[in-house]
């Protein structure tokens, strides 16, 4: 058993940090909350609807256009330009204004001049800013971030987390954050600490 008796709830526009040592089950909890995986038992609701019992495709449809992700290793599509990367979830959601929105989102993270760059032509911090633009562009209700600053140096990390919270406030997006970084966790409204799959008081 990876997670045991974990219970939490997050209201719209609020932020939650999940902290804990390596192997404590943080990432597993994140993937369950996002519906990327399904629990062997227990109940998860997203936007007031139960994820339990839904097929993978049905869970994917729940995420479509409403959930954003920011990953530790950025996970940009390597052969797509910054603009194309940001457009990807918008196009998937069938938005007509994908390109305009993507441009605006990149502008907002300060990359308005680097639209046609490929990920490998961008620094780590820039890549993560593209990823943040990609996550916020569809104006999701919920955003999951897995160690968003984990692969960045301290200064760049601080800038990226500023950006994350700024957008969180501006868009009223609920934010679930997995992190090792106590400073980052402290900026969240709520913090839960996991230890060997259980919530610590």
């Amino acid at each position, binding site marked *: 058993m990876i997670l045991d008796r974990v219970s939490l709830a997050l209201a719209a526009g609020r932020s939650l940090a999940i902290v804990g040592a390596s192997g404590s089950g943080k*990432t597993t909890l994140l993937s369950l909350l996002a519906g990327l995986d399904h629990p062997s038992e227990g109940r998860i609701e997203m936007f007031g609807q139960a994820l339990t019992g839904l097929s993978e*495709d049905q869970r994917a449809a729940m995420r*479509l256009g409403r959930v954003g992700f920011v990953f530790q290793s950025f*996970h940009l599509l390597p052969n797509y330009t910054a603009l194309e990367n940001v457009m990807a979830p918008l196009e998937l959601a069938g938005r007509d204004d994908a390109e305009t929105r993507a441009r605006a989102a990149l502008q907002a993270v300060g990359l308005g001049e680097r639209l046609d760059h490929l990920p490998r032509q961008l620094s780590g911090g820039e890549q993560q800013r593209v990823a943040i633009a990609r996550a916020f562009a569809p104006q999701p209700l919920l955003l999951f971030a897995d160690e968003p600053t984990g692969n960045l140096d301290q200064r760049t990390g601080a800038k990226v987390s500023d950006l994350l919270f700024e957008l969180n406030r501006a868009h009223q997006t609920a934010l679930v954050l997995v992190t090792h970084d106590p400073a980052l966790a402290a900026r969240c409204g709520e913090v839960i600490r996991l230890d060997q799959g259980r919530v610590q008081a």
Partner: protein
Amino acid sequence: MSPWQSWWRQARREIRSRELRPVLAALLVAVAAATGVLAFAERIESALSARSGELLGADLVLSGRSEIPAQFTSLAENQGLDHSRVVAFPSVIFAGENSTLVEIKAVQADYPLRGVLRSGPVEGPGAALGPPAPGEVDLEARAMASLGVKIGDLIDIGNDRLRIRAALLEDPEGGASFVNLAPRALLRVEDVERLGLLGPGSRAFYRLLLAGPAPALARFETAAEPLLKGQRLTRARDAEQQLAEVGRQTRAFFGLAALAVLWLAALAIALCARRYTEARREAVAQMRCMGLSQRRILLQVGGALALYALPAALLGVALGYALQLLLVAGLAGVLATELPPPGPLPAVLGLAVGMVGFAGFTLPALTSLSATPPMALLRRGSEQMPRAELLAYPMALGLLCLAIFLLTGEGRIGLIAFLAFTILAALLAAVVWFLLGRLRKLPLSRQLGFAWRQGLRGLAARPVTTLLSTVSLGLALAAILLLGVVSRDLVAQWRIGLGPDTPNRFLLNIQPDQTEALSAALKELGVANPDLRPFAVGRLSAINGKTPNPDDYADPRAARFIDRNQNISWSQELPAANRIIAGQWWTSGPEVSVAENWAQTLGLKLGDELTITVGDRAVSARITSIRAVDWDSFRVNFFLVFKPETVGSLESTSIASVRLDPASAPRLNELARQFPNVSIIDIDSILSRVLAIVEGVIQSLSVVFWCALAAAVCVLLAALAVSAGARRFEAALWRSFGASRATVRGSLLAELSVCGALGGILGGTAALVTAALLAAQVFEIDYRAPFWLLPAAAALGAALTLAAGWWVLRGVSGQAPAEVLKGG
């Protein structure tokens, strides 16, 4: 653990690895194609060498286009040599309403002087019965079948009949016509005159067979050489060499075709080897950390791969032996002889080609792998090419050359062909690269739907995969389409384009006193203006007063024009299908008009003086015009046409080309009986026979090119397998954004089908462009390109790519989205 144990253990682990599947498939195809082609070539070669020993039916042959002068016979007698006369010429024979063209071979009772002549019942081995007696004939079974006769029946020939004694089963000179056009009829030289088959100056091949001890033969040669006038001396040894050359060319020709397979298979193997080593770099760095030497690692990993590859190669050998049956089947109707079964050598060579090629194409990647520094564990991505890998490339090139040599028996030409193939591939790659660049910048309409837009973008986003897949598919499909569809289409259009007036019968050996009667008889058959042309046989004895020497000309055809007899004609008017391109038709003085290509080969210009010796008369004339000749017209055309006054009266016969209504063709039999010495040649049936031979070669070659397509699919598999990891990750990412399995699958299918279709169109276009060039340059016809080829090729390419994708990318679209949170 001993090195052997760890080797074995490594090999067992590799069996499970998915990325090696395309390597196995590529190796299998390459070995199968190599073994098949080599076995096929070996069978041809051994069939040829089985015949070459007794090829001539003699030790030495003196041959010519006119009766061999008696002085040579007495010369042979002086030296104590055995001699025997042979005359060969085409003629039509009849049985009731049926007729067929045969190659008549008239011999003396002592034929052959060397080798075996076998005849007997149609089925069975037959026996050395010797030539038939006068009044009898031995016929090849083919001729008996088309006449509907059996042994003991009578056939009409010339102005009499001959009884069929037996079926002609094996003739020493048969080897000379390894691929034969007309069936042979063997009869006695004594009958030729009695039947009125040849008149004076008739066109026939005359031979004097000679046999005896070597010193006597040498003395004969020395004495005969100065006396030769248009005759040629052929030693048994020369004939053997000629046959060996045919065998060698067969191997080189089909071997070069099989190089396409090797090239594509090599690409697949190199691609997979690189991917394989990238995946193992960390493990090897760890082994190095633990203190294993480079050599040991190279042996262990390479050895494991070899052990893994060997069964595939062996399976390829077995497949190759099945393949050569298909190769032979293509030519079955064309070869005049049974082919002996293949020996074990092709298996050994095919295996060697495969394993040597395999070693060559995995070596660079393996060397680089084994040279991975232990530091690679700490510092990832320090991609400096190790020195050992640089050394591996020349070695790989050496191994490649060896593989090419083993396959084609040709070092230099093989390598050139391999490079040519590479250049062609680079050309196609440039086209694809350009298209992909365009595609990247293309604003994709929203009407296309997500899957198509994403698929098209994926095509441009993975340019290497797209490039490799489309180019290899394109190359293989181009070869197949060019050979299988376009070439047949070209020939068919050319044949249709010949027009309704194209002559379909040649009448040879018309005597001067027969021309009027024959013209009248032809008129009765509905031929209004038979194109009758007188001609004589002579030799080019001087150009501007000097004896020409073949060694002075770069073009090898010059030797043919100088050493061999030339047919000359004369005419007051410019013959049809001829056009003056320089000078003027008949002005004054002794004049001759020369065909363009003949003049070019011999470097002749207007005003040069040519001397032609006909018999003991020399005819000299100035070149006053040069003609372009439409050889496609199927009219009788000549390189050399003289003004009639220039030649005066020469011993000559006439040749006529006529267009005969198929309905009146049976009545030609009466004509043939009326003029027994005239040979009537059915051009349609000869053309059909020639086209059947071309078709046979096309069919055999097609087998090789289908193997090339299989190898192209291996490249496809390899390229897709290389991209599989990235695709899996991307699929997980898309699914995390909320894409359904169907959406991800849809964009993958769109990408693969467009990629395959692009390869197909590329191949189809290459085939059509080649066809258009051939049509314009070689066939000189207005080609109606079969454009349906493009959608068909696109569909085939798409189907192949989708099938390959299904094999190596299965499960990619179902990738669990949670994977995105792992690794990276």
